[in-house]
């Protein structure tokens, strides 16, 4: 009798403690996001509304709309907004259409080598985000292989056309993944039902396939718009005087120390970016509701003509995506592009501060970001989805906002708070590139958390309850039940974070210091200094490292997959 009551007391105490562990851990994540997400962004908005003395490089503290009025009075600056919109809209249209046809081929026809095509479509993800522009210049620039070498024409690709093509190539995999998921999730029996009701293939495509996939299409389009309008790497390389908002922020801040204009343009950039994000989020939710759980993956054999058309199209796209990478890899091994094709390794002798070391800096920073990011987002997903404390809603909100904020804006926000003459977080921590790590962590928090939440939804609630009823506390449940069941999701988040951290430029360009140099940023600096052989060599190395690490991680994931049982 007495033993029973003590047991009871203990378990009550345990539940009491569990609740507070959730509060503390969830609260810490919340505070982390408040400091490193909300604070810098709000501060940028505040500064954009504050008077600035350009000569002294100082904000006075007086609230004013003058910065915005100045911006909209200056036609050349307004032009950067219009240019950005122009770029984003065309990139969105081209990418969505091209990726849709590609995804359709992979999901709804019986072409061969689908897996290979899918992986080739993902190739741009392992490349630094200005690789497309660099390759296009090598092919179609004033000294390009095709323009100058083959066609001998004066026409070149610099400016808006070049940016749009670069963005299409850069955004392609992002749109493709969404459309692939959408098209493979829609029940193909719908097409059969339509056929038995007399609809021809074409009318079934326009009346059934497109409408049922429409939310996925809109969601992909909104994402591409967001990516294209916030991208920094490609426009700075291939833009040549064609100003867009992201390059404008950089030039105003780094070139002219005009923090007033930098923050103002940042706020202006945030408007379309947040809007596109909200649309993307809305359509993704809508799209999920259209997905049938009874989706039937079997597809009947396609007619030969259809098969041929999609095979040719898919391999053309694959060829283009691979050429972009191929050109840069090739370029890193020849002496002088277009003039001297002698093979050489001299470009790998990097004459930059840090030398080859920048690659290792990027690697270990990215590994830290990967593990930390995967763990934090999993914890966050667990707390939001499974523990559902009273602050789950605001925590969720804060967790999905980062995708709406351009990386460049976040970076600017960081230097304006954490790297001032009053306080330098990096100095406090003896030159640890803490801000870089945190920025990449926060910038990619959205996708990590969302995929963790999906993973948690797939783990039966009774797992948690079973562990609790067997006497495990929350820490034990998480470490011994939830974590092992989430290994696949953990690894995919880790890989995602690692890749983003290796290739991102916009999020970190403001945050590199004399002590810390990163590989992807060095690519831009080398390219701008005219050392395009070396920038190609650095890009090649980045891709090589990413692919090698992916293979290593992929090996672990495959082993784990067999063990994982998810409901």
């Amino acid at each position, binding site marked *: 009798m007495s033993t029973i009551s003590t047991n009871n007391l203990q378990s009550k105490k345990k539940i009491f403690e569990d609740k507070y562990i959730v509060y503390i851990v969830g609260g810490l994540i919340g505070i982390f996001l408040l400091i490193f997400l909300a604070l810098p962004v709000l501060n940028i908005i505040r500064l954009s509304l504050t008077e600035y003395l350009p000569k002294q490089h100082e904000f006075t503290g007086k609230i004013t709309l003058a910065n915005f009025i100045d911006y909209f009075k200056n036609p050349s600056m307004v032009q950067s907004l219009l240019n950005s919109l122009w770029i984003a809209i065309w990139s969105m249209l081209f990418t969505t259409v091209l990726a849709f046809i590609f995804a359709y081929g992979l999901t709804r026809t019986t072409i061969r080598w689908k897996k290979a095509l899918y992986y080739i479509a993902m190739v741009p993800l392992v490349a630094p985000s200005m690789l497309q522009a660099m390759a296009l210049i090598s092919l179609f620039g004033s000294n390009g292989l095709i323009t100058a070498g083959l066609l001998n024409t004066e026409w070149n690709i610099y400016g808006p056309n070049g940016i749009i093509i670069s963005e299409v190539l850069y955004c392609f995999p992002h749109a493709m993944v969404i459309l692939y998921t959408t098209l493979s999730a829609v029940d193909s029996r719908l097409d059969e039902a339509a*056929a038995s*009701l007399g*609809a021809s293939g074409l009318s079934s495509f326009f009346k*059934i396939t497109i409408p049922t996939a429409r939310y996925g299409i809109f969601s992909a389009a909104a994402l591409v718009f967001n990516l294209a309008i916030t991208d920094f790497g490609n426009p700075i390389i291939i833009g040549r005087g064609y100003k867009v908002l992201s390059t404008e922020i950089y030039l105003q801040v780094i070139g002219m120390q005009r923090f007033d204009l930098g923050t103002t343009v940042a706020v202006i950039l945030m408007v379309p970016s947040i809007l596109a994000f909200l649309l993307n989020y809305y359509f993704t939710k809508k799209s999920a509701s259209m997905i049938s759980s009874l989706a039937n993956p079997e597809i009947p054999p396609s007619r030969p003509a259809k098969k041929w058309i999609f095979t040719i199209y898919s391999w053309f796209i694959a060829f283009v995506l691979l050429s972009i990478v191929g050109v840069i890899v090739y370029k890193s091994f020849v002496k002088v592009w277009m003039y001297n094709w002698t093979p050489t390794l001299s470009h790998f002798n990097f004459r930059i501060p840090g030398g080859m070391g920048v690659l290792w800096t990027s690697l270990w920073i990215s590994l830290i970001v990967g593990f930390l990011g995967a763990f934090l987002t999993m914890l966050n997903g667990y707390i939001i989805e499974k523990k559902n404390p009273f602050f789950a809603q605001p925590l969720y909100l804060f967790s999905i906002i980062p995708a709406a904020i351009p990386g460049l804006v976040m970076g600017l926000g960081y230097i304006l708070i954490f790297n001032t003459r009053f306080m330098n977080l990096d100095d406090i921590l003896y030159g640890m590139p803490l801000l870089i790590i945190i920025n990449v962590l926060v910038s990619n928090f959205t996708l990590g958390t969302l995929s963790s939440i999906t993973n948690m939804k797939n783990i039966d609630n009774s797992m948690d309850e079973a562990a609790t009823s067997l006497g495990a506390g929350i820490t034990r449940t998480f470490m011994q039940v939830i974590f092992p069941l989430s290994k696949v999701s953990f690894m995919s988040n880790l890989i995602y974070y690692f890749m983003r951290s290796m290739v991102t430029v916009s999020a970190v360009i403001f945050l590199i210091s004399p002590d810390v140099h990163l590989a992807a940023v060095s690519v831009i600096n080398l390219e701008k200094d005219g050392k395009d052989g070396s920038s190609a060599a650095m890009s090649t190395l980045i891709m090589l490292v990413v692919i090698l690490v992916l293979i290593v991680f992929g090996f672990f994931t495959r082993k784990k997959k067999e063990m994982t049982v998810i409901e």
Partner: protein
Amino acid sequence: MSNNLILKDISKSFDKFQAVEKINLEIKKGEFLTLLGPSGCGKTTTLRMVAGFEAPTSGEIIYNGKVINDLTPQKRNFGIVFQSYALFPHMKVSENVAFGLKMHKYPKDKIESRVDEFLDIVGLKKHKHKYPPELSGGMQQRVALARALAPSPEVLLLDEPLSALDAKIRVKLRAEIKELQTELGITTIYVTHDQEEALSISDRVVVMNHGRIEQIDKPVEIYKKPTSRYVADFVGTSNFFEGELNDGILKTKNCNITINNTNGIIAGNVTAAIRPEQIELIPEGAKINENVIEGKLIVIIYLGLIVRLIIRKNDHEIIIDILEKNFTKLELERGQNIKIHFPPTDFLIFNN
């Protein structure tokens, strides 16, 4: 032409997997035919070949005297209903039903009245402006039925239409489908793995196994006179006894059983089957000596109308169904020994 739809030597293989093997089938006009079997037996593949979604590897599908193998689904004018409903989620209920009419170029002014007519038949007229996800599963399947029937198809194909529904709705909708089919007189092929469903709804049942037809018969024949051990096992419940048959006596490991009706099989290694409801309990003191077994009552399953008893004799378990009112009268308890009797005329014999 009375032989409406004929499958002649139809085979279908996917890569190395033989899904359907040389099936021959004739479906009469207005007949309700059910393909019954476990998953993977080829029933759905057969239906999909009739619908035109899969092409047979060999053999002919003949409709009204014409080979229709190469006809696309669009041109066959067969209505189909899927397990997953396959309603177009972006269209209202009325638009779903109108879809086939539009595709068949019905005059515009007649489409609306026809949509209303069919939604009325399935009792969903007042939901015509809703979208499919707003309806319950049973309602969605009714819409799918109306959609398939509206363009007056010549054959109706139903692919496990009730499997995704709750038990209560399943039974209700089953009756509705049968009623509607009889009223319209439409030739119907129905695919299911549920034997009760097959027996209750069909004019004839085709029992399939591993891509082949085991038996084609009326439901009552399928149940009472299964032609193979497989059918006896798959349709309903049977007790099986394996042994040597000789002179009307089956020698099994545990006992000897007298069997009077041996389907012409005189001797050999056979399996005898008897339905649980044919086995009788012997009241205390009754004088029957032949085919009596005494065993221990180990399980009592109360099913309402009947009660199922499982009796163990050595390592053999025998299933017996008795009426609930008899069960109450006898005051049976688990663990007690009871005597049972196998009427010698109620066995079915299959060669091993």
